[in-house]
């Protein structure tokens, strides 16, 4: 059995208010402890903001700047430039945002930061919707998913954010999953070691938002990876693709069936999703030369 091998250095504290069983908290723990003490975090409104904060307490050892929803990457830029000017160019500036703050309202600022290749490590906790506001659709919500604002299921597909970012030709874009903490830690470490804009999108199965059990988020994330719904891959310099989990042996149908938000799907919808997954997978696999 492969051991999980990152070390908890005490960068993330107990007593935060994430939902019981939330894997965003698990992922934060990996990221914060991998990045280490010489870092500043910028957090737009999101579940992460709630998890980190709750004045006068902080659950995060490094300083956190809570910014506005659309400002993540711009605020991170400000922190980074100030640190450079103050003679601390090696301090890592993290931006920890949700999919709303990344795919939607924060995309403009992120695209600009990426275009300027600002030296920031941007993490998107992608729970495929506005889950902190009770579960409405975002442009990351997958097709057919029921949310508070798509009660009959979303009619359009999830935005391909990862390749939008890759098109900026930034040094590093990757996906990661809480079902593989070693891979996540390795990607964070790798990204931290690079200069410029690095983005890691982490799939966060949301317990209430997706309608899954408190203890199941890692399992669901694993199913997403193994079924090919959420492939684990990296793109370096916008062109160089690597697949980190190159077999697709899980069932898309099973992945869908365990989530309340997909409970209403009919066979045609399921097979259409399966086709999409196959096509997307093949396209990435082709680029990665797998």
């Amino acid at each position: 059995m492969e051991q999980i091998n990152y070390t908890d250095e005490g960068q993330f504290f107990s007593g935060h208010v994430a939902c019981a069983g939330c894997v965003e908290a698990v992922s934060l723990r990996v990221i914060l402890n991998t990045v280490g003490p010489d870092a500043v975090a910028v957090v737009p409104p999101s579940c992460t903001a709630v998890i980190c904060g709750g004045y006068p307490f902080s659950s995060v050892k490094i300083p956190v700047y809570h910014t506005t929803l659309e400002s993540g990457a711009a605020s991170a830029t400000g922190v980074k430039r100030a640190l450079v000017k103050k003679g601390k160019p090696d301090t890592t500036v993290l931006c920890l945002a949700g999919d709303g703050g990344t795919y939607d309202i924060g995309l403009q600022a992120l695209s600009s930061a990426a275009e300027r290749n600002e030296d920031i490590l941007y993490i998107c906790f992608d729970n495929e919707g506005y889950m902190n506001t009770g579960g409405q659709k975002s442009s990351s919500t997958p097709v057919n998913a029921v949310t508070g604002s798509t009660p009959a299921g979303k009619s359009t597909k999830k935005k391909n954010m990862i390749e939008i970012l890759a098109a900026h030709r930034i040094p590093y874009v990757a996906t990661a999953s809480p079902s593989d903490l070693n891979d996540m830690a390795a990607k964070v470490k790798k990204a931290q070691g690079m200069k410029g804009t690095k983005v890691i999108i982490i799939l966060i199965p949301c317990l209430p938002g997706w309608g899954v059990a408190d203890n199941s988020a890692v399992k669901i994330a694993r199913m997403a990876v193994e079924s090919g719904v959420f492939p684990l891959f990296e793109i370096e310099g916008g062109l160089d693709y690597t697949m980190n989990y190159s077999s697709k042996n899980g069932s898309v149908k099973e992945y869908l069936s365990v989530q309340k938000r997909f409970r209403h799907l009919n066979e045609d919808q399921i097979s259409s999703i399966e086709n999409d997954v196959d096509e997307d997978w093949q396209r990435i696999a082709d680029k990665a030369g797998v």
Partner: protein
Amino acid sequence: MTQQPPTPLWTNDTSEARMTGTWRSAMPNYKNLPSPCRGACPVGGRIAEWIREIELGDYKKAWTILADNNPFPSIAGRICHHPCETDCNRNQLDETVGICNLERFVGDLALKENWSFPAPTVSRDTSIAVVGGGPAGLSACYQLRRLGFKVSLYEYQKQLGGLLRYGIPAYRLEKKILDGEIQRIIDMGVDVHLNAEVGSAEALKELHEKHDAVYLATGASRSKNLPGLDYSQSWVMDSADFLAETNAEMACDLGKDLVVIGGGSAAMDVARTARRLGRNVTVLTLEPEDKLPAHEVEVVEAKEEEITFVSGAMMQSVEVNGEQITLKCIRVEFLQGEARGQFTINPIPGSEFELVTNGVIPSIGQDADLSRWQDLLNSEGPVISTDKQWQTSTPGIFAGGDVASMDRFVTQAIGMGKEAAFAIARQLAPVSNETSSPDDPMVPYSVINTSYHSTLRRHLAANSEVEARLQTFDEVQQPLSHDEAVAEASRCFSCGTCILCDNCYLYCPDMAIIKLEDGYEVKDDYCKGCGLCVAECPTGSIAMQEEK
């Protein structure tokens, strides 16, 4: 000098001040729950634990854990009927862990390295007589010595081992293995009396007077007789005698073609021994082939050795014509009864047939001779009656193994010897006897997170080639190599046994699990009771426990 006004808006403490433990309704509980293999094991062996030690490379520790319940790992590793493998959770992913092969690996290593059992930490004046030097008796001797009792062992044969020596052929169990594992027990300080029969109630009474307790484990050495067969004929040989003689390396006088009657393990031993003596062998069984009481692998190996099976049939009469013996047989309908060994048969009219042979070896089971003690000990059917503590109708006299039970596998006898030893000990002295509560349910496959266990074929111990087998009495089953053993050990799910993998610790979203040197502790103040630790435990050794 820049002066900023005091502002309250910057955090000034950590979230550890917030007690999220109040959210919880259930909390993880680290409890090494019994694995199904352990539940199935007649000696209650902590199988998952010792296999884990093989994986980690601490073979001595593996052996120590193994020998806690069974002083015969090398023997059991060869001949155990391994119900552990039948119940192994891994069967549901691919195939069982080769527990028996691994047990042999550890046992053989212990013999090779001359590892000995530690001397008892206490010494008691209380003395116990063990009657019968077979697996049950020796197991009792071992456990009683470990507990510090004085032990005298009385064996009516001239060598110890009982069925292990006189009933199991060498191609299944090499004699030097048997000798080694027995000697290691004797070396703990057992007072051995060979050729010492306790043949009457009087003798037993006398023995009891000399000792504080007696454990009777004389086995079942008397063969059951097949009705309609004249055992006095020269072409008939009792199976126990056959095995005892061949095991003592005596030749067999029977002719070229033989029929063995019976479908049990002993019948297989007889048939395969006869093959090694150059005979053509046919096995005649009442049971249809898929219901043979012998272990499947024994039947498979027997067939490999070109033994013919005639199943679901019985002998009705015999015709003798010089050296040619004709067995008049008929096909039967075999109906399995509820209890083991219970069945009814209905001959199928018109299905008569004949088997022509030179000799017959009936092998339909063995009984214990109870009549010698009938004045002293009550019996129940074919065995001495005992209570749950293996105590007979005479207080202070205990019994176990084949003489007291119809559970007739070697490891069951070893387990009974262990249980009786503890029962005796409890009666005679305050001893601590730590065993896991029998009420704990076995770890089911459903709680094993198999994503941490990839599919891997079993590393099965090889058998020697059939041609070579038939030339000698050398062991058929070959040992696992060191690498195979370690690889096989790593297939074990370690059901219910914490392997300190840190999954629970690192998957806790609330940093509510603390690492200790040999385990983990849950921080009551912060655990929200989500159960992610349980879900991601690869061994099912944590369970959520409702609070209030």
